[in-house]
């Protein structure tokens, strides 16, 4: 058992929520449902409306239209201070004139809880975030990571039924960021509060989330579990934003892809055959490179060391493909190599995924993810509880 009280996470439903700034719809008719105790991530580039959406859920902004329901109650007219939500901000949100303990107890003092209870709770929470003994420090005497831990304790002190995380790790350095987000994920599972994270960091989204919502220009681009979104991106935008993807033009043949210059590249996994010349996407980890004694259709243009692996860029005619290879690069710059592909993704001209069939028949086209992924998700949530 953890030392923090378990919190009953709320169900959150957004219905056609729209927010207009000037003439631009920052959030455009977004609808989604977040299950109790779920960890949902709003992922998107800056300007995609993810923070605006989060601030509307927290009550800092009102939508121009649409409804926000927490456990079935419309909270659009409920002021921030009365909502059962708590937000962890990007930075600079600890009150600099209050000690760590007073920062954490602020909300409890406002609620006029007994002194003993407050003191106990502050002790517990600071213990949970690993900052026992820091009670009387001022925020200016803490490191960035410690400050965010205090902010987390402060948010949890309110026993929020929905916890809102507004890029809370982005101001920290890499090591601290990974450490703190792992901690947050573990704590969230223990406490059980519904959690919504806003981030532009795909790694963070993939690691933490039960489900990810990819936003683009204020609209939902795709919703799904991390693996589902990664494996079956619905648009080229999603494919490029989560992980990376190279795009080729060419036609499909029985064994693979024929590029515009006539070179044929073998594709191992079965794929649907589409007439015409679709956009062909391939992830770098699905590109298999082999040295063929100096001959081969592709040329190595660039090699980037990434530590435990290498990213190489290959070209063939006008086509460019990125590939991940291990420590051993099969050749050097300007070497000719052979290329095969494990798996490809097909998109229309406008970037929408075409009939994705990687051999798994249960994935229906145009109707969102099929039964299997749906039930898988339910399973994930069951096991967590």
């Amino acid at each position, binding site marked *: 058992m953890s030392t923090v009280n378990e919190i009953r996470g709320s169900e959150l*439903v957004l219905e056609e929520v729209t927010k207009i700034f000037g003439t631009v719809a920052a959030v455009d008719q977004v*609808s989604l449902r977040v299950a109790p105790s779920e960890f949902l991530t709003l992922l998107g580039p800056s300007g995609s409306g993810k923070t605006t959406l989060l601030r509307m859920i927290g009550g800092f902004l*009102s939508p121009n239209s649409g409804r926000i329901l927490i456990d079935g109650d419309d909270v659009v007219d409920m002021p921030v201070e009365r909502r059962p939500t708590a937000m962890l901000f990007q930075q600079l949100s600890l009150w600099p004139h209050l000690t760590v303990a007073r920062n954490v107890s602020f909300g409890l003092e406002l609620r006029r809880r007994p002194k003993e209870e407050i003191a106990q709770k502050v002790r517990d929470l600071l213990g949970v975030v690993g900052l026992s003994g820091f009670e009387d420090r001022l925020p200016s005497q803490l490191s960035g990571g410690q400050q965010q831990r205090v902010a987390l304790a402060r948010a949890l002190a309110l026993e929020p039924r929905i916890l809102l995380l507004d890029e809370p790790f982005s101001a920290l350095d890499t090591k601290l960021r990974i450490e703190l987000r792992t901690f947050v994920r573990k704590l969230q599972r223990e406490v059980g509060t519904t959690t919504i994270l806003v981030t532009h960091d795909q790694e963070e989204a993939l690691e933490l989330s039960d489900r990810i919502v990819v936003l683009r220009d204020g609209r939902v681009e795709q919703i799904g579990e991390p693996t589902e979104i990664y494996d079956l991106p619905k648009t080229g935008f999603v494919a490029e934003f989560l992980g990376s993807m190279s795009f080729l033009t060419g036609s499909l043949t029985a064994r693979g892809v024929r590029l515009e210059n006539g070179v044929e590249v073998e594709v191992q996994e079965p794929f649907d055959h589409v007439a015409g010349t679709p956009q062909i996407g391939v992830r770098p980890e699905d590109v298999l490179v082999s040295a063929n004694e100096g001959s081969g259709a592709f040329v190595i243009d660039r090699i980037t060391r990434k530590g435990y692996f290498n990213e190489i860029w290959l070209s063939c005619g006008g086509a460019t493909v990125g590939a991940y290879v291990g420590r051993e690069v099969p050749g050097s710059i300007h070497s000719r190599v052979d290329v095969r592909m494990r798996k490809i993704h097909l998109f229309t001209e406008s970037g929408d995924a075409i009939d994705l069939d990687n051999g798994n028949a249960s994935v229906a086209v*145009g109707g969102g993810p099929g039964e299997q992924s749906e039930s898988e998700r339910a399973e994930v949530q069951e096991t967590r509880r």
Partner: protein
Amino acid sequence: MSKQSDDGRAVTEGGSLASDQPVAKRPSRRVRRRMRTEGKRGGLASTLAFLPLIFLAVFGGIPIVLSLLLMLGHFGGPNSAVAQLGQGEIPGRGIGTLGAITQMFESHSYQQNVIATVIVFVITGIAVLIIAATLTLWQRLRPSRAMATLQFLAVVPLFIPVVIASFTLWTFWGDRGFTDSSAALLGWSHALIFSGKLQGVILAEVWVSLPFAVLLMRAGVSTLGDSSLDAARDAGAGLFTVALRIALPQLRKECLIVFCFTAVGVLGSFTVPYIIGPSNPLMLGVDAVDTFSNYNQPQQAAVIGFTIFALAGLIGAIYAIGSRSRHVNH
């Protein structure tokens, strides 16, 4: 298409929310009210923001209008109390009379007073600007304990009442004062007397204006980024070049404010020239009070008041032009 199915799926997932939920395309009245009240208006607090405005109107704006009427020869209404005591008044009909104005400006001594006042505020403004900029930039580019102390000393006059300052400097720079005595001891009699002269007024005005200028410049200098200064030094610029070419242009706004603030302060000062200044030419501030209290000529005093306003308007124009060309640069 895919987006719609996405949303649809997400909503049906909740179970309770079917697609037959009516969604208003046009914001409801409640929503529209919300849209209006959003944007941070601050309700009550914003109403209270107008409280100082009431005081400023009653004791600033309206009096200035009344004073204008008085100058033009309208002695009725709230002006009657003053006008009854006044002497040498020139009444006006219709829009009014410019009699008082021409009367004043035709007098040779008044012309002298105006010129003297302009000289004093221009020199003081420039001197204060140079001193404040030197002190603060020096400490920023080459910090030392001596310069830090110097800056502190420059602020000390803020805490000495202006009357005391004027009196002290009057005896210090005066006949048989400190400087006069020191000079005499060196066999150099009557060389360092400034009291009763315009030079003394300028020295004393610099003395009382310096603190605020230093505080303002210091605040501005503290915002200068290290990187821009370091980069200039990397490029081989000496401290003097950095100060003149890199730092000062970034402090344009502060420099303008320091000059204009000082100039207006000097223009509207009474105590310093009253105690230290010569009796001829008179600074306009002293002239105004004299004319009002000693000669009982409120109408003529109003003319002096508006002369001062007009000069302040000139300074304001300098500020406006200076801060506008900044925008062009950006």
